[in-house]
């Protein structure tokens, strides 16, 4: 459960959408039906696995932590459903699950018997219900996805969620990629303040508080009550927070660290150092044209203007300059083979400044216009903002860049709706999850609350559909966003992982783009 998360995306901001990104989840585009099978774990046991990252979490509470930094607590919390390395789903604390009836509103979970938390107490169905209720009460990132739902014990080892509105993605929301399925023990729920610095889960490891310095070094030892001891590969797992990508790379070179999350700035050096580098598509990075109603910049209300900005963007050049080796050009807010992906959408806006000028003139802005754009310093975002400003200036659009190194300030700027556009890095997600985050009127990435009846209709149909119908609706949603130019996506990128030869199990795929710490094993 560690870095398997997509959530990781944000490591920029231990706090908020820090760094400007949101992470998402990936998981396969599979259906919602029953369970799969976890691959048999080997019983290889190593000494200490040391993992490094640039940012640390502000809390270990699975329901209030930043999803992007939940790796730090997930070693200790087993999810109800496990998302496998190939993107499929397998039993975790739940052995099977299904939607009852039609409409994706009633979701039934059958729980594993005999599961014990790290304090030795046995997990009951009521504990799971209590945990779901805490998810909503805690008000964390997962709360909106469960708000208004009801939870009930419907059998000795069965829990049923009755959703207020259709939700086809409960199975994904209950995997390690999100935190809602990380069940907390009764003791933990009794003392929620302690959840910040201690762990109360049923995962393979538990936090060793005596060897932990909050915000810097987190030490985990095996949970003696874990139900699958063969899946525990290390006597100790240490997760270190290091301040910079260079420090992480140096520690890998000297063998002080076995595994770490990398970034574009150190990718070539990592390869030259002989480290194993893996990555898979996960994020799209580009500009959000947020003021689509023209409240601050009237021009942005005109779809021709937004399309002009897309035509004025030379994605191939930008990707070669800023994301060489880690990204590919994209015009859509997903990644290749991700939710709603349509290869044909990537030829909607070929680089054509002349066409851009024509559209601007047709929209009544032959001499362009001026707008501001806020950016964070995460993952080349500030450089991308500068590059876009230069390219758009060629068609007469002047961009005043607000470069916020402080992730919290950046986030506050764009969430508050005080800047008409901003640079974002966003992880692909199932449409049902992406909507409330990215494009529905209440979404944080839609700070001017732009509403579209057509888009809302597509979304509503999508969340009630399943199978190929849902896939087709995903693509229609994506097409709507591209055709109406709500965004200027530039690159589809992934998160790079660096590993020394001392470990295996660091492979990633499009369905599972993040390394799962608990799946990392000693090489020998």
């Amino acid at each position, binding site marked *: 459960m560690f870095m398997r998360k997509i959530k990781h995306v944000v490591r920029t901001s231990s*706090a908020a959408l820090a760094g400007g990104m949101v992470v998402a989840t990936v998981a396969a585009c599979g259906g919602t039906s029953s369970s799969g099978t976890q691959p048999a774990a080997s019983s290889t046991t190593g000494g200490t696995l040391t993992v490094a990252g640039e940012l640390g979490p502000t809390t270990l509470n699975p329901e209030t932590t930043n999803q992007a930094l939940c790796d730090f607590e997930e070693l200790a919390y087993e999810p109800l459903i496990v998302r496998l390395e190939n993107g499929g789903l397998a039993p975790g604390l739940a052995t099977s699950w299904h939607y009852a009836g039609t409409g994706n509103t009633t979701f039934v979970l059958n729980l594993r018997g005999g599961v014990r938390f790290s304090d030795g107490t046995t997990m009951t169905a009521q504990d799971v219900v209590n945990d779901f209720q805490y998810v909503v009460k805690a008000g964390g990132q997962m709360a909106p996805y469960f708000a208004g739902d009801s939870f009930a014990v419907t059998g000795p080892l069965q829990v049923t969620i009755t959703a207020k509105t259709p939700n086809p993605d409960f199975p994904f929301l209950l995997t390690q990629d999100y935190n809602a399925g990380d069940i907390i023990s009764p003791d933990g729920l009794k003392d929620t303040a302690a959840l910040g610095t201690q762990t109360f889960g049923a995962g393979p490891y538990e936090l060793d508080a005596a060897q932990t310095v909050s915000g810097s070094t987190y030490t985990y030892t095996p949970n003696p009550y874990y139900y699958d001891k063969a899946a525990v590969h290390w006597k100790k797992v240490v997760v*270190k927070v290091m*301040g910079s990508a260079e*420090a992480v790379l140096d520690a890998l*070179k000297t063998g002080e660290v076995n595994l770490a999350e990398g970034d574009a700035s150190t990718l070539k050096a990592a390869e030259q150092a002989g480290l194993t580098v893996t990555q898979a598509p996960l994020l799209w990075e580009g500009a959000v044209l947020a003021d689509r109603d023209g409240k601050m910049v009237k021009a942005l209300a005109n779809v021709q203007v937004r399309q002009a900005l897309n035509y004025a963007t030379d994605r191939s050049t930008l990707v070669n300059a800023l994301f060489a080796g880690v990204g590919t050009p994209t015009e859509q807010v997903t990644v290749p083979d991700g939710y709603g992906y349509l290869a044909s959408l990537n030829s909607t806006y070929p680089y054509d400044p002349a066409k851009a000028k024509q559209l601007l003139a047709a929209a009544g802005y032959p001499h362009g216009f001026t707008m501001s754009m806020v950016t964070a310093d995460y993952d080349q975002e500030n450089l991308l903002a500068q590059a876009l400003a230069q390219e758009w200036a060629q068609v007469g659009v002047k961009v005043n860049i607000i470069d916020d190194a402080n*992730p919290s300030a950046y986030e506050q700027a764009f*969430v508050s709706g005080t800047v008409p556009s901003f640079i974002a890095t966003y992880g692909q997600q199932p449409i049902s999850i992406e909507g409330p985050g990215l494009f529905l009127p209440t979404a944080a990435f839609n700070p001017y609350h732009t509403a579209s009846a057509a888009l809302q209709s597509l979304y509503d149909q999508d969340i009630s559909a399943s199978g190929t119908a849902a896939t087709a609706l995903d693509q229609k949603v994506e097409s709507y966003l591209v055709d109406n130019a709500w965004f200027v996506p530039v690159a589809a990128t992934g998160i790079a992982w660096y590993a020394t030869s001392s470990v295996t199990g660091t492979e990633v795929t499009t369905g599972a783009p993040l390394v799962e710490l608990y799946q990392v094993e000693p090489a020998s």
Partner: protein
Amino acid sequence: MVRIAIRWLVSSAALLFAVTALTFVLASLAPGSAVRAVLGANTSVTPQQCAQVKHQLGLDEPLPLQYWHWLYNLLHGSLGTDLFSGQPVTAALGTRIDASLSLIVATIVVSGLADVTVGTVSAVRGGVTGRILDTLTVFGFALPSFWLALILIEVLAVRVRLFPTTGYVALDSDPGQWLRGIVLPVLTLSAGTTAAIARQTRDSMLQVFGRDFITALRSRGLPLRVIVWKHALRNAAIPVVTTLGVVFIGLLGGTVLVEQVFAIPGLGEAAVTATTNHDLAMIEGIAFYFAILVVVVNLLVDISYAVLNPKVRVAV
């Protein structure tokens, strides 16, 4: 004596008040918001949720009232609670002060011994040797600490592998690893102190060497070694000790960068994280700890005056 003690207590309390109040105001004026930091990457947060979190954090109260609450809790022995982890600030900082003090004290010891020696040799030998030593001290001062840290890591940790690139091991956990872990950060911090301490030592020694009692000691045939280390250095020590005190206080700030580069879990690193997250309780706690250290160091410096110079004792 009592009057002096009272004066010291009052001035120390005033310093603590001023530092924490100013920190409170500046931290509150900084761009960004603890509310957003607490809510994290929640992409669906509503204004009502923001308001709820703001209320829970007490950030909807007027600033003076927030500060008063902090001050009230302080007077009752509490520095508050970390906004995010829920951990008491004293506990959170208690695990970190050991690392910071290890770096600062070790740097003072290394710098004190090395720089006082260099300054003394420069004063006594003078000529080309003195100029070379003076140049070297200025060179050390001029080196950007972050650059020096990266060079030291690349050469002594990555290539030669004498020391770890990052991290910190507590002294009581493994003294050997503790020593290995602090060598590079202490070298980095020490470089920046050379000019101040060595040059102050040299200037003080030159002044003392010009005084009559040194001439008298020389005329009595005492060896130069005895004159320098037993008589001159003691008389030159007061400004040097003052400089060491100033350097110590300066190192409180210096550790912020060095702890970041070497990933050492100290107060400096915590300060950066807390500031980024707008964790006011932690920021105030760190400022309070730093202010306490400043007060203690100033007290030790004052006491050292009395030890080094009997005239001061008489005056007291």
